[in-house]
């Protein structure tokens, strides 16, 4: 375990898995949506559903969806903040066939009509794993700048994407490719060593065969959060 995983994170209490991890799930989902959600459906599974309330899991998830980081002192007041900022949310238990005991299933809609569904687990010490994006399996931690691309399952798509990254001298730290269970499309998850610029995201989005581009820049300051 890295030094600052043993000492740290700085977080709002009381639980690294049920509070800090939950906030990070919400935060990551909001970043992936690319905008403030106006509607959020939040399903809680396992221990998130049974002891979540006492740990502030509900308030932490909503805080994250509003773009607050896990150490933001406003976290306990997130329900009031959501009302001020016009975000409607519904929190309810869900049954999953299997899953990590601390799992949340989020379905979000932005004011521009963009929709995102995400399943993620809080795996301890405030760390998370995103396990599903828009119904397709995924596996990333939200600690690196991450690019998620839905594309038609045709030859050459991956090469075009990696070439675009190479052209901008963006190094890929890890890459996963998943095929959707039904339909003929696939999803790529690329964790990158440097910032993923907005123009690149726009360029990728209009490339033939690419259906949707989602981007998470963890090094991005709050003010410049882009649509």
């Amino acid at each position, binding site marked *: *375990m*890295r*030094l*600052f*995983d*043993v*000492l*740290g*994170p*700085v*977080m*709002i*209490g*009381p*639980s*690294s898995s049920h*509070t*800090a991890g939950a906030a990070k799930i919400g935060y990551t989902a909001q970043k992936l949506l690319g905008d403030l959600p106006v509607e959020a459906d939040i399903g809680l599974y396992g*221990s998130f559903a*049974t*002891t979540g*309330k*006492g*740990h*502030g899991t509900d*308030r932490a998830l909503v805080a994250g969806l509003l773009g607050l980081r896990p*150490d933001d*002192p406003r*976290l*306990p007041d997130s329900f009031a903040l959501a009302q001020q900022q016009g975000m409607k949310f519904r929190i309810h238990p869900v049954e999953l066939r299997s899953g990590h005991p601390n799992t949340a299933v989020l379905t979000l809609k932005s004011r521009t009509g963009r929709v995102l569904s995400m399943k993620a687990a809080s795996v*301890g*010490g*405030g760390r998370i794993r995103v396990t599903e994006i828009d119904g397709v399996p995924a596996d990333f931690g939200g600690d690196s700048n991450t690019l998620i691309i839905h594309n038609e399952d045709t030859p050459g798509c991956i090469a075009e994407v990696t070439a675009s990254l190479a052209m901008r001298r963006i190094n890929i730290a890890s890459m996963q490719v998943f095929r959707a269970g039904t339909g003929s499309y696939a999803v790529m998850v690329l964790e990158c060593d440097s910032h993923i610029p907005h123009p690149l995201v726009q360029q990728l989005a209009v490339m033939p065969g690419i259906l949707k581009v989602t981007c998470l820049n963890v090094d991005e300051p709050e003010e410049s959060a882009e649509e």
Partner: protein
Amino acid sequence: MSFLSCEEMLAAARTQKISLAEAVLRSDLAESRLTEEQSRHTMRHLWHVMEATSREYDPAQRSRSGLSGGDAAKVEQAHKAGRSYGGDYLAEVTAEALKTAECNACMKRIVAAPTAGSCGVLPAVLLPLARVGEADEDAICEALYVAAGFGQVIAARATLAGAEGGCQAEVGAASAMAAAALCHLKGGTPEQCAAAAAMALGNLLGLVCDPVAGLVEVPCVKRNVVGAVNAVACANMALAGVDYAIPCDEVIDAMGRVGSLLSPDLRETGQGGLAATPTGVRIAERLAENDG
């Protein structure tokens, strides 16, 4: 790579002729891709948050369940009125452990050290020393590196999660880390730091994780006090040259094995120990009704 054994960590300090803190720092830089400056800056930030948590403690604040809050202020008042044993340091260590752990229960900002449930132990033993000028910020940060090094070894050989190892993995680990930090601050040798950590963890071996209603409150808040006070006693023993018969690595391995032998009821599920007492169950039922 972080160290996989205390033996290896001590050997690195010995062969490179550097302090234990320096050895821990260097081992992490290679892995984390941080520069030394960034690492030291982050450590200082963690210390500043520990100070801020204590400073911003509000005696009137209660946790959402109503089970936590206000106890640190009682301890401070009683000590001022002459109604406590053990002198200023013990009273302050007790109060600081309660303060940080109560802040955690009240959804305030803390440093997980190594976990949120055990966040009060390290600040409890260090804050009083900083306040009276017995240790400056640089010395405290060095001691925190030593603490982190032992925490990393515990994570590598056993676990830091109550759900896996019980409270011995959280407050036990925090106590070992704090004992080593205190030992280092007073100029203890790396061997003495390891002995302090071994004693602290050995003393808390078998401690179960039995949160009432599943919340990080009862008995977690007060167990932070025991972790802190135990750390002080073990650091004192190690500094005096008292030996521990079992080497630190073996104590850590034993903790891991004891953890896996513990019934799941005693590993953060809120099904055993104090959580399963008639009063513990009543509290859980009352809270469930209020939430429903």
